[in-house]
């Protein structure tokens, strides 16, 4: 069979990844298991990285570079975001340009309920005569963050998911901005433009006594984030191969056909949206607890587009691809600092080039690559 035009370009990358992927899938199950375990062990070992020949990877190997474990933590949070957004964009095929909104809701959930300096906690202290150190425990803030993000996802999705796909993009973009403006304007419960400080970690409010989850050593934070990422990978994988995952696939490929076959498109889009939002909230939660301080301008619309770029450049629909995209986009500007001024320019270029030359992304999901190819062949037959 003759190759279509798209296959020729970037074929080096494509063949390399395809070769590795096929070989990997060809291995016996126990070997894959061992390989996976070794990879996970390596991930846990990463912050201590000292193998000669690999130390150049560390961001503190350059002058003025950031703390290596801190960068790894950021990468892990971005991977978590990419996994969540991948459910929405990659699996269900919905373009969400307001993902930063859910991220902000998660971050503000822990700030508003967990920080002793938040206006909400202060008014609760006054009302119930509590000690000035009282605030809602970090662990309880996790379900609050997830629930709030999920609820806002449902509220946003309810009116918009019935619409055509391209309207969704613009409404979500507006949603991300609305969240930021609401937070900025509501000084009496969100701290307004000044933000909220002293956001708790697993060991409570930030203080010099926190030996494990302190402000200086980021390694435990990274290990925590990595563990959550692995858990989420496992859960999303189960979801992908379930009835829900198949329904997403059907809705993405042909909504009308799916509806005829008894899959309710609205219901499953809503599920994808809610699950994506929950993961966005969770990652915002982690981000805020490590930062200790957040303010509304950290959640601008550029970040949303950066998130979309991670998933799309890496390969939407494939968790490994989305994760790769997230790591690349979080890590490269840290390691190559000279280029960090140009990071959004380079990401924009990457987005355009990937879409034009390799729309399935660097590490594509097999099925998605096939869908794109089918469409190309359709037009070839028509012309």
């Amino acid at each position: 069979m003759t190759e279509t035009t798209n296959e020729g370009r970037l074929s080096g990358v494509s063949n390399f990844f395809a070769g590795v992927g096929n070989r990997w899938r060809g291995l016996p199950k126990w070997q894959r298991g061992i390989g996976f375990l070794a990879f996970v062990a390596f991930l846990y070992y990463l912050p201590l990285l000292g193998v000669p020949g690999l130390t150049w990877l560390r961001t503190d190997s350059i002058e003025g570079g950031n703390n290596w474990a801190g960068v790894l933590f950021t990468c892990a949070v971005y991977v978590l975001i990419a996994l969540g957004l991948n459910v929405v964009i990659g699996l269900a095929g919905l373009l969400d340009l307001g993902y930063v909104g859910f991220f902000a809701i998660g971050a503000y959930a822990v700030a508003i309920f967990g920080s002793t300096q938040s206006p909400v906690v202060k008014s609760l202290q006054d009302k119930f005569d509590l000690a000035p150190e009282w605030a809602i425990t970090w662990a309880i803030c996790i379900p609050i963050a997830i629930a709030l993000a999920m609820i806002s996802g449902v509220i946003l999705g309810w009116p918009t998911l019935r619409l055509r796909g391209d309207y969704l993009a613009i409404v979500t973009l507006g949603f991300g901005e609305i969240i930021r403006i609401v937070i900025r304007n509501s000084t009496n419960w969100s701290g307004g433009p000044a933000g909220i400080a002293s956001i708790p970690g697993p060991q409570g409010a930030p203080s010099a006594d926190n030996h494990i989850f302190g402000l200086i050593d980021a390694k435990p934070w990274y290990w925590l984030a990595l563990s959550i990422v692995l858990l989420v990978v496992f859960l999303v994988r189960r979801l992908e191969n379930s009835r829900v995952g198949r329904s997403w696939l059907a809705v993405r490929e042909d909504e009308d056909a799916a509806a005829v076959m008894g899959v309710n498109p609205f219901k499953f889009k809503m599920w994808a949206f809610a699950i994506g939002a929950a993961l966005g909230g969770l990652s915002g939660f982690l981000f805020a607890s490590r930062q200790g301080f957040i303010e509304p301008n950290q959640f601008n619309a550029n970040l949303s587009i950066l998130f979309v770029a991670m998933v799309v450049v890496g390969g939407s629909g494939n968790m490994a691809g989305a994760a790769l995209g997230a790591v690349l986009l979080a890590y490269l500007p840290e390691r190559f600092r000279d280029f960090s001024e140009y990071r959004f320019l380079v990401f924009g270029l990457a987005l355009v080039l990937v879409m034009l030359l390799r729309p399935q992304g660097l590490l594509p999901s097999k099925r998605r690559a096939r869908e794109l190819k089918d469409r190309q062949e359709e037009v070839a037959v028509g012309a």
Partner: protein
Amino acid sequence: MNFDELFGHLGQHTVDGLAKGSIYALVALGYTLVYGVLKLINFAHSEVFMIGTFAVLGVWNLLGADGTQGVAMTLLLLAAGLLGGALASGATAVAVERVAYRRLRQLNAPPLIFLITAIGISMVLSETFGIWQGRLVVGMPTLIKQKVAFTIFGTEVTNTQLITIVAALVMMFALDQFINRTRYGRGVRAVAQNPDAAALMGVNKDRVIMLIFLLGGLLAGAAALLYSVRYGNTRFNVGFLLGLKAFTAAVLGGIGNLRGALLGGLLLGVVEVYAATLTQSNWEDVAAFVVLVVVLLFRPTGLLGESLGRARA
């Protein structure tokens, strides 16, 4: 809620909103034209507008505008700014179409891919200007000093408001006539109705698509001039919010419908100014999005209904 201020000077705020809305309407036309024909939200259109403002600034600096010139020079500067802005924006829009969208059309890419490409291009353009021109607000010479042009029913209309509204209305009328009465316009409507049938009837589809991008770009350039006259500054990301609101205006009036873009733009401008007056500008930007969501909920096809193809059916 500052109701006294709003109702005390209702006429004033309405005129202000109409002037603001005229700029939205001109940019909204670009979205509507492209959407009507290609069913594509051209995210890069906001950057087309942004480049227009920088072109206007460049032309003015080149001609040495400093706000002290006489009437003849002011008119010359306005004309030169219009020409420069429209040409720069038109060229950008056509270039975006040639570089990105044409290839995607050949590949029959799904709509998601078009959207993401458009976002990428938008990012590349605005970042290029952010790096080149700096990230701060760039001031422009004040070409026309604000003056009350005339008073009607106790409402003062300033000269810049008058120019903005009249210029926008004239351009909208010209575009409407062009689409509805000329040979090229017929081609545009034909492709919007049914691209394949139009191609069989001998309409050059690629040329029509280039034409709509050019028209959208020219109007965005004109909007850029009016914006520069009215606000007297620009910035690398000036297109982001304005583009979002212009798109909202297009949806509000019925995307794909030229007269709808005018109606939507003016309405949105007025709503925004009212909201800004009521809340001391805090919730101005939220008002636009709330309008968008409410319209999509109750009338997804907009106020006048969508369809460029049936513009004169």
